[in-house]
């Protein structure tokens, strides 16, 4: 007996839905084994995670607060991934967004009419993220420099930069030596809906809708999809790939920068430690699990926020490492990746010796169709 892998004519819809669910179950089982091995009851742990992330208004609020940056960065990363541009620099683009937003909130707020402060803060964050994203895009588009490495290296640079600012030149003089800037003036605060959940959640939904429209309904979106699915065909069709790489990364970086701006102006209301806690990396999982679809990204961002907040909760309540959340995230994506085989291919078991018959039957089927 032999297993034959054949490409499906169309992507299997049922496999497409089933694979994420099976992956989730697989991740939970893997996590359970790890928890058992470290002498903890996995059911109790998972219950504590779920309660901590979903039990009650406050818990749900905190989960949404974490879902917002995951939504923005997930949308940004998924757009770049569609073009097979491997932007793993969302973390740095988010950091730069936070940096620029903080700069405007702290140093320009007094010189601007008060109605314009918040828009300026947000736009500054988006522009900074876009610029940070455009640098590796330009290098890749015109000099063919590998973008996985440049985007990632720029994360380290951005994180060191903001940490230098809030530890040093931008540190609040009245902050008792606490590393962080002074609090923003109220006109630079992003309004909150309830608890700490801010307007960013609505912005994220709007951004997802716009992105969906752009990708599915515009000529530019069509170019991006073609380039991602078949770069050769895109080139023959006369699509300017280099230009599109730069444009896509401007948009991708702007979304990640927006995440950073919302974090500093909506959640922390200052720049301090805790801005770069790995949202930009989780975004990769969000984008891939959401199958690069904006709606999928929103849903998966929420799911992963549940895991993140749950991880914090088990650290607080049970003294278990919050890194459990990152282990679960990784364990989620492995089966997800392997599962792609079942959405794009079909497995058939063929008896050895029956090879000739197998070929004739399949060609017979082709003829019948």
């Amino acid at each position, binding site marked *: 007996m032999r297993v034959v892998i054949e490409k499906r004519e169309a992507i299997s819809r049922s496999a497409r839905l089933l694979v994420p669910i099976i992956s989730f179950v697989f991740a939970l089982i893997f996590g359970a084994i790890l928890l058992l091995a470290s002498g903890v009851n996995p059911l109790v742990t998972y219950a504590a995670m779920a309660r901590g992330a979903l039990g009650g208004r406050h818990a749900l609020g905190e989960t949404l607060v974490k879902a917002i940056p995951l939504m923005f960065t997930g949308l940004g990363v998924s757009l770049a991934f569609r073009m097979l541009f491997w932007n793993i620099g969302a973390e740095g683009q988010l950091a730069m967004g936070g940096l620029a937003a903080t700069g405007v909130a702290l140093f320009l707020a007094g010189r601007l009419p008060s109605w314009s402060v918040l828009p300026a803060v947000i736009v500054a964050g988006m522009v900074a993220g876009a610029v940070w994203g455009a640098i590796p895009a330009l290098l890749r588009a015109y000099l063919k420099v*590998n973008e996985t490495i440049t985007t990632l290296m720029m994360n380290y640079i951005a994180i*060191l930069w903001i*940490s230098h600012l809030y530890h040093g030149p931008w540190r609040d003089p009245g902050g008792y030596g606490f590393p962080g800037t002074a609090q923003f003036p109220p006109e630079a605060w992003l309004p909150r809906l309830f608890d700490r959940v801010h307007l960013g959640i609505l912005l994220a939904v709007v951004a997802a809708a716009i992105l969906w429209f752009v990708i599915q309904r515009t000529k530019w979106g069509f170019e991006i999809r073609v380039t991602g699915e078949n770069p050769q065909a895109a080139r023959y069709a006369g699509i300017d790939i280099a230009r599109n790489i730069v444009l896509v990364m401007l948009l991708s970086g702007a979304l990640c920068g927006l995440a950073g701006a919302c974090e500093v102006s909506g959640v922390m209301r200052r720049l301090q430690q805790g801005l770069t806690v790995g949202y930009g990396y989780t975004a990769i999982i969000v984008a891939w699990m959401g199958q690069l679809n904006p709606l999928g990204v929103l849903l998966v961002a929420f799911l992963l926020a549940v895991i993140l907040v749950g991880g914090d909760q088990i650290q607080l309540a049970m003294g278990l490492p919050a890194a459990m959340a990152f282990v679960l995230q*990784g*364990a989620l994506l492995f089966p997800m990746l392997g599962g792609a*085989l079942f959405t794009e291919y079909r497995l058939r078991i063929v008896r050895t010796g029956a090879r000739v018959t197998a070929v004739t039957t399949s060609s017979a089927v082709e003829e019948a169709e």
Partner: protein
Amino acid sequence: MDISLLVSVLTITLRAGTSLVYATVGEIYTERSGILNLGVEGMMMMGALAAFAVAYHTGSLALALLVALLVGGLLAAVHAFLSVSLRANQVVSGLTLTLFGTGMASFLGQRLGPGGTYLVGLVGPSLKRIPIPILSELPLVGPSLFNQDILTYGLYIFVPLAGWYLYKTRPGLYLRAVGENPQTADAMGIHVAAFRYLYTILGGMLAGLGGAHLSLSYTKGWAENITGGRGWIAVALVIFAMWDPLRAVVGAILFGGINAVQFRMQAAGTTIPSALLNMLPYIATILVLVVITWWETLRKRIGAPAALGLPYAREEKG
């Protein structure tokens, strides 16, 4: 220039470069087989954690190195299974390996200490520097080249061997064939999938060993984010080296040198902000990558194995 300063910079350069050489050469072998593994950072992280945890609890450095090799190989085997057997996207699979390895190491680092507590900040056994008699007394090069730990000495044999194997032996030729043109290699009777599994796992083992050098020698102990992007620098060095193990050494020494200069300047109390000094390796990686890509494109050389990152499936129907 002060001789003792030069000796110290040279010594730190080699010590800092050791983990990079192992990881880079490992990734070169993996990529030569046509598999791109961006999980180097995660495998190094797990190698560093496993090595220190084993050394701390058993006191055996040999066992620690062995476990680091195994852990790196095991993680790489997951990537090989996904990339070779399941034809998954290699970029995303490798990234996942890095995320998973980093998370797992952080989790275990908080559980594998004495009595299920933290490993961070503990002092355990470390690789000792063994001066080689006579040679280590040579002026200048003696103390830096011949007063190192066993993994650094290992490089003096490992690197030439890695180059010789790749370019001068039949299995090395087959390996290059698999990465350049798997169809032809298959027609020659080479088992493409087996080669890809083998060299992906080998690459992972070497990344694990590189990680072990960090926790057993370079930083001595486990710390969160101990690799600090070295796995990624190794991926960049593969391109810098144009997939040649001997050129990887040049790159690793360059980056080891940057580390050494950073270290000396911080020790000397410079006025340059430490954040800027800490950025140096990352800025240098980008600059080096830009220059080398530009230069090699000018010379119209494409060093990457032609089938890198592409899954190979034998066509069933003509």
